[in-house]
């Protein structure tokens, strides 16, 4: 092809086009924001909120639920928080901490938001937290928080601490299950936190695990681990449960793996061994007929919310929610709703021209949030001090839902994470 003379011109022309392409996007982008060398926070009366909701990848359902909860609060409160008009800029959390960090960068550096809200997955918070803290922008987390975040001065979670959920159900299981419990979960930070929180609390109250030694690649963890992010087939792992003599199984899975796990559990013929889990196993869209459907019936889970939580706040919330959306509200709707409610209070207290710094200070003074899940307040770790519920998947009318069957111990003291992961 090199010897053909007519090819000369287009080749060179293409090269020139290539060089031009280099310049065009840079010029196009350079329109936003002033010089990077003088960064001053904006201080006007409109509050810009940056929301990181998952819009692609595995966390999309959670991101959608959170966006719905947050926007519902705004639309029912005249698009104002604390008396200030609000502009919400959103960015996609994506599947990994890389994509979530890119989203946080866009919101913080390009959109110059005053507050950051969001993330479904716990993992990216580790990357976002230091960046928000340096810029003195409060970050209101609506998903899990890993035990590895050190400086929480600008980090607040309206959701849960990853080690808390399992710890809340441990005493109940130790009391009611007559025999050892088999623990199984995914091998990543979220899994180690969730399952570790359960196992530590369970052992503390005298509970006994059914897991055999050597079932786990990580010797520090006592539960059976399955590959993360993808476990191709749960059957080989589940086939070990029968022989372990377990009288119950406790697990933590969320999203796609949860759907697969619940079906595989039924297929493995383990229905006579009760399945308990962290509430994410059956939360939100998981109970749809084309996901877990009837296979989830009878599973008991622990979580800090269910649509059947008693109280006027929840009744009002469920009514407002169902006036707009066709689904039953879930925890992800509530954590985002609470994030908006929290900001509503804090911005009102943050002076006439709220900035990230003053809003953050105001959040620290808030003593109580009236949430659909019941009132809660922040503990020393900037996470809710809250009630946990034991729920069971039952047919509620025509659809499956998580029905509260009892309250679990409040004031869970979450034990410190092990020094080495």
């Amino acid at each position, binding site marked *: 092809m090199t010897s053909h003379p007519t090819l000369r011109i287009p080749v060179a022309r293409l090269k020139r086009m290539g060089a031009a392409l280099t310049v065009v996007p840079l010029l196009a982008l350079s329109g936003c924001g002033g010089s990077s060398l003088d960064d001053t926070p904006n201080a006007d009366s409109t509050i810009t909120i940056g929301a990181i909701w*998952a819009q*692609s*990848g*595995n*966390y*999309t*359902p959670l*991101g*959608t639920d959170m966006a719905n909860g947050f926007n519902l609060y705004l639309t029912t409160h005249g698009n104002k928080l604390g008396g200030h008009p609000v502009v919400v800029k959103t960015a996609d959390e994506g*599947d990994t901490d890389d994509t979530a960090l890119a989203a946080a960068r866009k919101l913080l550096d390009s959109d110059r938001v005053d507050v950051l809200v969001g993330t479904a997955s716990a993992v990216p918070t580790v990357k976002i937290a230091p960046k928000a803290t340096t810029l003195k922008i409060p970050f209101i987390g609506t998903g899990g928080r890993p035990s590895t975040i050190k400086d929480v001065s600008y980090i607040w979670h309206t959701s849960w601490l990853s080690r808390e959920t399992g710890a809340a159900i441990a005493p109940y299981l130790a009391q009611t299950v007559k025999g050892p419990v088999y623990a199984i979960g995914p091998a990543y930070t979220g899994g180690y936190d969730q399952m570790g929180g359960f196992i530590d609390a369970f052992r503390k109250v005298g509970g006994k695990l059914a897991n055999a030694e050597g*079932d*786990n*690649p990580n010797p520090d963890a006592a539960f*059976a*681990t*399955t*590959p993360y*992010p*993808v476990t*191709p*087939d749960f*059957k*080989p*792992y589940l*086939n*070990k449960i*029968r*022989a372990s003599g377990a009288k119950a199984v406790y697990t933590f899975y969320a*999203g*796609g*793996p949860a*759907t*697969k796990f619940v*079906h595989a559990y*039924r*297929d*493995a*013929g*383990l229905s006579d061994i009760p399945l308990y889990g962290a509430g994410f196993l059956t939360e939100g*869209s998981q109970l*749809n*007929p*084309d*996901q*877990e*459907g009837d296979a989830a019936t009878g599973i008991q889970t622990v979580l800090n919310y269910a649509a059947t939580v008693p109280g006027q706040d929840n009744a009002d919330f469920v009514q407002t929610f169902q006036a707009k959306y066709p689904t039953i509200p879930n925890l992800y709707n509530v954590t985002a709703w609470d994030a908006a409610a929290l900001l509503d209070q804090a911005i009102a207290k943050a002076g006439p021209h709220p900035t990230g710094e003053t809003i953050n200070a105001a959040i620290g003074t808030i003593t109580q949030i009236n949430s659909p899940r019941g009132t809660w307040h922040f503990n020393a770790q900037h996470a809710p001090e809250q009630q946990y519920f034991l729920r069971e998947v039952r047919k509620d009318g025509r659809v499956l839902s998580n029905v509260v069957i009892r309250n679990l111990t409040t004031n869970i003291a979450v034990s410190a994470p092990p020094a080495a992961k």
Partner: protein
Amino acid sequence: MVSDLVPWAVTALGGVAYGLLLFVVADGLALIVGVMNVMNLAHGASYLAGAYLACWLADGTLTGLAVAVLAGIAAAAIAGAGLSVLLKPLAGHTEQAAVTLGIGFIASWAFTRLTGGNTLSPPRPAILDGHLSFAGHGYPVYDLTFIVLAIPLAAGMYLIVRRSMAGIRLRAAVDDPLMAAAQGLSVARIRTIALATGTMLAVTAGVLGAPVIGPGPGVDSHVLTLSLIVVILGGAGTNIRALLTSALLVGMVENIGVATVPALASFSLFLIVIAVLVVRGHRQAVSAA
């Protein structure tokens, strides 16, 4: 003693079902790579499309499943032919791989938009729902049926490729396209047919395999990686026997292997591929392409 063996037997059976499913997907990829000499990076998306199709059309009856299979085959034939039109004006393999990568990106975006990013699990036909029990260890009836169906499918494919005129032409186009063209065979047509057939196999595997490997974000790249492993081990082209053996090996490793040595669960397949490459001679590895 026997009761100790039951969990292993059930796990091994799981490996067979998994391996056969991979065989169907990977066979399609081997055909495309062998005939076109193009790495189809959208092959995982074809599986995913089939699996989503099963979720939309399956209604818990055998008829629903059959409709989904037929719809999948029809759609795949069109998509495969379309892909061959798209790839035709492109000279280099890099350009062709880039286009298939682009299709994969767009497909995964579209699937997330259409399904809300949920991992779905379609209803199985009522007759095939439920599980058989072996000493307290369950095994799904559906997976067992899949094994029973896949064995004659594999045998049929073997016979078509080895014995039929179409198979002979196909093998000619894989082994020596120039000579095949010189003999008067239309290599372009064979390529279109190979792309359409390869895509059909992936989509059919998706429709039938949706209850085994359910559709969701990330499943496309996962299935692509698994079928790549099978193709690397079994060789591209039309060697059905080698592909079946390596697909069953991968299925066994993913089931028996991860149960025996959980520590290696995430690595075992990659290590096997590298080990095979080291052991296998240079010439053989090249001729596999």
